[in-house]
């Protein structure tokens, strides 16, 4: 049974998150400020922390900095600050995810579970010739299977060939035309939105929040790529 710390000065939010997580069989430790949160992290065996940024006594940023001195557990920031700058700051100081308020409870739960899975599976994954991965996304070319944080994802053959092509060339941007030519092995006569519809379907399957994708990213006006994590 996983232990998760929820640290927020808004008691109602903490309790709501507790309800969602307990439904998933996760035990929740509650803290209402940064110092209390650190204390809980030190004293209890906790696998993941959900931390608010704006908190009394010790804010989330300083709390995570302190936490990183003794622990590598995944941290999800939960904040009303939705600016890009805030997100970048949060991720840079060592958080694994950033969820803005007001959040979708299901999304938060999915992120918690995904991060837990990845944390638990860390180091246990076997390296194989035909296995390609980026972050928690794994493509097994032997069995033509796709896993996200260890959980298998069901993809159509075309979807699989698109994702495996992109994962094999992770970090590179391909335009719709280039992807089309690779997959169908045919020159693109008339460019339409077929590929982008497929991409969207893939994203809905592998991403927790398709509008804010972690792996399969849209480079607007240029093409698509798999993020090299």
């Amino acid at each position, binding site marked *: 049974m996983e232990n998760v710390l929820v640290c927020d000065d*808004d008691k*109602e*939010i903490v309790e*709501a*998150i507790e*309800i*969602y997580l307990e439904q998933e069989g996760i035990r929740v430790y509650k803290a209402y400020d940064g110092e209390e949160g650190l204390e809980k992290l030190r004293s209890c065996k906790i696998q993941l922390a959900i931390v608010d940024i704006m908190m009394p006594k010790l804010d989330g940023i300083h709390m995570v900095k302190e936490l990183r001195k003794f622990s590598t557990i995944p941290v999800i920031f939960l904040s*009303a*600050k*939705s600016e890009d700058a805030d997100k970048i700051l949060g991720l840079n100081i060592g958080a694994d995810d950033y969820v*803005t*308020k*007001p*959040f979708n*409870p299901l999304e938060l739960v999915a992120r918690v579970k995904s991060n837990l899975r990845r944390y638990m599976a860390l180091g246990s994954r076997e390296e194989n010739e035909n296995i390609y991965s980026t972050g928690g996304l794994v493509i097994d070319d032997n069995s033509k299977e796709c896993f996200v944080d260890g959980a298998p994802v069901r993809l159509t053959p075309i979807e699989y060939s698109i994702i495996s092509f992109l994962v094999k060339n992770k970090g590179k941007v391909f*335009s*719709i*035309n280039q992807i089309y030519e690779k997959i169908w092995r045919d020159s693109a006569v008339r*460019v*339409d*939105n077929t*590929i*982008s*519809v497929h*991409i*969207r379907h893939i994203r809905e399957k592998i991403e927790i929040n398709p509008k804010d994708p972690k792996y399969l990213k*849209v*480079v*607007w*006006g*240029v*093409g*698509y790529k798999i993020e090299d994590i």
Partner: protein
Amino acid sequence: MKRITFKILQHLLMAFIAFGLTFAFAGTSIVISTARNDYSYNLYESDRNRTYEDSYLFNNIFGNNLSDVFKLVAERTQLETAGEYDGDKVVDVTAFVNRGTTLPGDYITAKYSLSDLLKWSQSGFQYEKRNFSETDTANFLSHYTTYTHLDNNLVSGGMNSYLSSQLDNNSSTFTISGNSSTAGGEHTVLISRYQTIDGKNVEDIVSNWEEYNTLCSYIEEAANTLANSFEDYGTLIPYYSYQNSNLRYYITRTINGRTDVYTNVDSLKGETTGVDIKSIFMEYGKYMYYCPYDLEYDTNTRISESVVRSLIKNYSYAYPDQIKVYVAVDTVNYPCTDDFTQGKQSFSKYMPYRTQLIILCAFAGIIYIVLMTINLKLVNAPETVTKKNKYTEGIVLWGLLIMAIPVIVNMIIIMLMNTGIAKYTQLKAFPFIAGLSLFVADIGFLEIIFGLYSKAKNKSIWKDSFVRKIALFSKNIIVNTTDNGNVIIRTWIPYVAFLALNILLLKLGLSGMIIAIFIDILVGIYLYRQNMDREKIIHVIENIKNGDVKAKVDISELHSDNIALADAVNSIGEGIDEAVNVSMKDEKLKADLITNVSHDIKTPLTSIINYVDLMKREDIDNERVKEYLNILDIKSQKLKQLTEDLVEVSKISSGNISITLTRINFVELVNQTIGEFYEKFEKSSLQPIFKPEMDVMVINADARHLWRVLENLVNNVCKYALSGTRVYMDMRLADGKDGNKKVVFSIKNISASELNIDAEELTERFIRGDQSRTTEGSGLGLSIAKNLTVAQGGDFEIKLDGDLFKVIISFDALERTE
């Protein structure tokens, strides 16, 4: 106190300088009274190392005396016989009057005794007008003309008829019958006061009127000339007497073997045979000996032979070549007081001290300047700034008045003493007078200097001047009459005046024309300057118009009323600048406020959304409660969207977003967007149709912001388009207004509800196609899309045609380079 002491010291110094200089220079220009004239002589610097007798001063005095002596001797030849005045001396009037020329062998003359002529001249010549008939004439005039004949009429060796006429027994007379052309009428007749030595009257000698008139005029001229000479003679004889003068002269003249001696040395008047006159004269000291006949000239003075010759030439009628001139000054004894001793006195008095005096004066001058400098420095002291309110001209006038006092006083003294200025300056007391005068004048001078200096210190020479006051006054009058008048008066009156002035000046001729050209050039410069100023102001106005509200006119370069204009322009610019700044600040404040408020809204909103969701998960039988929960869910989601959009709008409009322009393929972007919205289109039963002109159309834009624009537009379409219709998207190249190629994207759909609204209003905040605001969305979508497009440098346009809703976005096209 210090300053007053300094001032008095300065006055004293000035007085000393004046005294010293006048003393020194009065000495250099001395006036010496001689027999007939006051002569002024200069002391020469080169005489400084010479003795008096060797100096130019002495020689100049000697030269003047020489001239007098020659004159005296010439007069003596006319008036004396054997060295004494001879009243019975016979004067041949025609020969006398024509003494400078040669007479014909036979001539008409009358001989009078010298004293008769002198007396006649004294009492005056009287004439009478009488009417003569021919008979009267015949009776009045002689029937014969008496001619005189000079037996010996030599003209060689400087001799002339006059000299010949003075010889004894040298003339004879004869008569020739005449009176042939006797004429009647009115004639002037000389009243014969004296007769000739033969007891004749003029009319007894001549036989016609012409001869009569000529002879009468000769008699009168001779008499008057002799009378003048006699007067002169009376002065010179005692002046150059042996007892009164240090000058010695001895002049002999030989005419036709007869030798006359003229001298003031009594011991040489008698027989001088065997006496070496020259050595006697040499013993006197300075001497001069001249004998033109023997071509001899000897002197130990600085007088050259040519000077002597030219002096004698003035009286050549009296001096034939056979003369001997001995002149000397008794410089050994100086037995008498005369102009030579006067000169000697001045020479020894001034000559040695002259240079020292001048040096002393120069030194005093330097001290004067030093004192003045120190005193001027003291003007700086605050307690001395007192004469602030005096007019500049007043100070100058007051100083000049003081300076005029000594001038006026001296002029009055000169008038009262009835002497010339030159004589006045020779007075012994003159240096003292000059010193006193300059003492007073210096008070006035310093008054001006210090007054002006303190004004200059305060930079108020012009400010306090009366001229300025008048200028300001007249300027005010002109400005008041022109400024308040209308434009016609202000422009035409000066113009007409200018033309009239030009025409008037041209009438004056050349000088007027030159003045006119000068004035025209001035007016030209004035107009040019005025236009230059206007140009500068207009330039700045142009800049402000184009958005550079910080543009300013440099007032220091402008003139007259343009300064006021520039000031106005500057303050308008400042006002706009301030308004822009204030509005920018306000916008920023508003954005910050909205961001902060939205943060505060988000936290409770999180709880609302979460708990609504939790409640929905509970088993609720009551359908109404389920319906209510649904409404709560939708509205809370809407609130969430609204707060996010609000933050975005405020960020865009306050310019708080960063824009990174990159090359992107607009076609790809649209395809990607359609892919993203594929399900949404299907859900709304809409069919998207995108037909780009080319596969690749490159523009410069911020990809994420442009995606946001398209997202908003497509979202809009999905929300408001009539379901079951097609959504047409189109992309093509077009020529822009500025000549650049443009990539133009348009998206159009049929609105589900009636579009009863202005296209412009759709992009205004919180305006939506349906004013009821019941459907989802914040109403900020179009506003965000438009602002983001503009922020990237694109154009955003909405067109409404019935139910057709069309949005056109255009960007500058880039060349396709891959």
